[in-house]
């Protein structure tokens, strides 16, 4: 197992000056962002009314933007079942039916839900926002957290009460009463969608929206409150599953051979590439203010590839995309659990349930990206040893 802490990958010249956030740019190459609205640092006109400060707000930021436009913000949509713990209510729904479920919700309307697996991640996004607002008070390039749920609006008041109780900054939501929220995700230019339901996540992925399924781990290790940490698997998450297909079809040797031959050919993009991109754009805003060492966003690549061989192609691809990743960990097939336990990301994306389960066993909050060839082979006994 080799751990490599790389210096941030050399950014292609000409990209640092562009501070555009590309929404839903899943797989779009850098060139296609040209049409998006350019962020003009001198533009001081407020585009949204500042929200009046109430007793609930811990932060007070004068004149800051609270309702960013979807095309400027990095929109993260979370479902109520991953933001909060709703197991008891789920049980009522499954065992006693929907009418009883709603009655129960309304009866307990003033009882806030407990935090769910996406909660630490959302709190970390808000921490980043606070730092961004300090540096760029007029900017709309922030995280915009939207609650998207299939729940009926009956549950709305309990959800609002819960958001208030936890002092979360969620001002946009969408309760679809059973119909698909995909249209709304698109209208909101969602950059990432987190849900407990794999079917909904798959639907989002087919529509080009980065999405992952979250699970409640039995224990959640403590994570940083001052720095957002996001970890990604490589193949079939940041990159396409093309290499994984080779490995599955022809075995490890063929895989190595193929990667060596194609070392200089870029891998194709995967479903989470756009989200990494969005994170990178925000990171650069901190760097521009001299806060590289103190940056509240840190990204990790945690891959079964090997540093000396197959990992090279991954790094070259990232570099060509102009994406920086703060730490790349090449495990050469070793289990990811222990490494993740050291990193303590707020969220870890992987396409294989085997790794998700391994991570969860050690308390890491992992999100499954149901994409690519691994889905046909997804079982606890499947490994991706020695890539």
């Amino acid at each position, binding site marked *: 197992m080799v751990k490599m802490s790389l210096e941030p990958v050399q950014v292609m010249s000409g990209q640092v000056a562009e501070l555009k956030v590309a929404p839903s740019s899943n797989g779009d190459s850098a060139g296609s962002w040209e049409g998006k609205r350019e962020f003009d640092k001198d533009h001081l006109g407020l585009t*949204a009314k500042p*929200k009046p400060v109430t007793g609930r707000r811990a932060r007070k930021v004068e004149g800051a933007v*609270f*309702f960013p*436009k*979807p095309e400027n913000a990095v929109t993260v949509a979370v479902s109520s079942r991953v933001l909060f713990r709703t197991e008891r209510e789920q049980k009522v729904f499954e065992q006693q039916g*929907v*009418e009883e479920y*709603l*009655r129960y919700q*309304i*009866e307990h309307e003033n009882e806030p839900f407990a935090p769910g697996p996406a909660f630490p991640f959302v709190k970390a996004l808000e921490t980043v926002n606070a730092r961004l607002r300090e540096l760029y008070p007029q900017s709309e390039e922030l995280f915009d957290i939207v609650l998207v749920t299939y729940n*009926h*609006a*009956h549950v*709305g*008041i309990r959800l*609002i009460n819960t*958001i208030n109780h936890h002092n979360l900054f*969620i*001002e*946009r*939501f*969408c*309760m*679809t*009463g*059973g*119909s698909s929220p995909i*249209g*709304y995700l698109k*209208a*909101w230019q969602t950059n990432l969608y987190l849900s407990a339901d794999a079917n909904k996540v798959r639907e989002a992925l087919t529509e080009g929206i980065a999405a992952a399924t979250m699970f409640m781990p039995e224990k959640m290790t403590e994570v940083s409150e001052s720095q957002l940490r996001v970890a990604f698997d490589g193949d079939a998450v940041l990159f396409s599953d093309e290499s994984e297909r080779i490995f599955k079809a022809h075995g490890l040797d063929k895989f190595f051979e193929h990667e060596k031959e194609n070392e200089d050919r870029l891998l194709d993009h995967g479903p989470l590439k756009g989200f990494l991109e969005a994170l990178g754009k925000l990171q650069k805003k901190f760097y521009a203010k001299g806060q590289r060492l103190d940056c509240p966003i840190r990204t990790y690549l945690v891959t079964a590839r090997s540093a000396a061989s197959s990992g090279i192609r991954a790094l070259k691809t990232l570099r060509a995309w102009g994406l920086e990743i703060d730490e790349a960990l090449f495990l050469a097939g070793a289990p990811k659990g222990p490494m993740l336990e050291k990193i303590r990301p707020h969220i870890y994306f992987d396409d294989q349930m085997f790794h998700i389960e391994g991570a969860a066993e050690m308390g890491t909050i992992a999100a499954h990206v149901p994409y690519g060839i691994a889905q046909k082979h997804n079982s606890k006994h499947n490994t991706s040893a020695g890539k």
Partner: protein
Amino acid sequence: MVSTDQKTDVKEKEADCPVVVAVTSHAVFESGGAEDPDGLYVGGIAFPLLQALQKVNERLLKENPAESLLFDVIVITTESQQQQQSSRITESIRHHGLKVSRFCFSNEEDFIENLLNNNVHLFLTTNRNEALQGSQKGVLSVLLDEHTASCPTEQLRVLFCGDAVVQSEAGPALASKQAAQSFSAQIGKMRGRFGLFDSPISIALVTSRGGRESCGDALRTLRSLGVNADEAYCLAGVPRGPIKRLLRPHFLLSECFSSN
């Protein structure tokens, strides 16, 4: 705990009466009086809406054959030219299989009186002036346009706009707030006749400008009127257009929340 049975006596009485909906002939049929080969009028903007109202009635009666809380649809002409076309209008209605309980052949001067005499709870028109006049006389008047009404769903979709900013195009009027609230209560009661899924009516709430508190307040306001929304969207400044297109409402109501 909220229950749709929790009502005052007055509301109980109101709720058992039919909900009288008046639609102008201009809205029911294509404007310009387009005709099909048989010389009958072609369906217009309000056509799908009337079909949805009818479907609701059918389902209500299926649940309870003795149901009295039904939509009572009147077709009303609002100008002399249409007034002359009475037989063609009735024929066209019959031909399209629409169930209309009454026809009011009035003109520009007396249609408002007819609305009042017939105790109309909801007046639907494609004419802005007519909607304004109706509002001013305290009749809940909703302006239909090609976006709000012509959606191809079987389910009647009602959209409540929770921000005072989103005024109905007819313009607010004090008297029509009262009318809006009692109509909403009737819709809420009708919705309560069905379960969560497979309902012929769906009620959605949208707040456009404010944050979650304003949406929460709107949900509570609706609940106090006996309306339990199925869907709720808090946009907090996101452009409404795409959302409205997704929601495909038959019509919009906003007077319940106006600040006057």
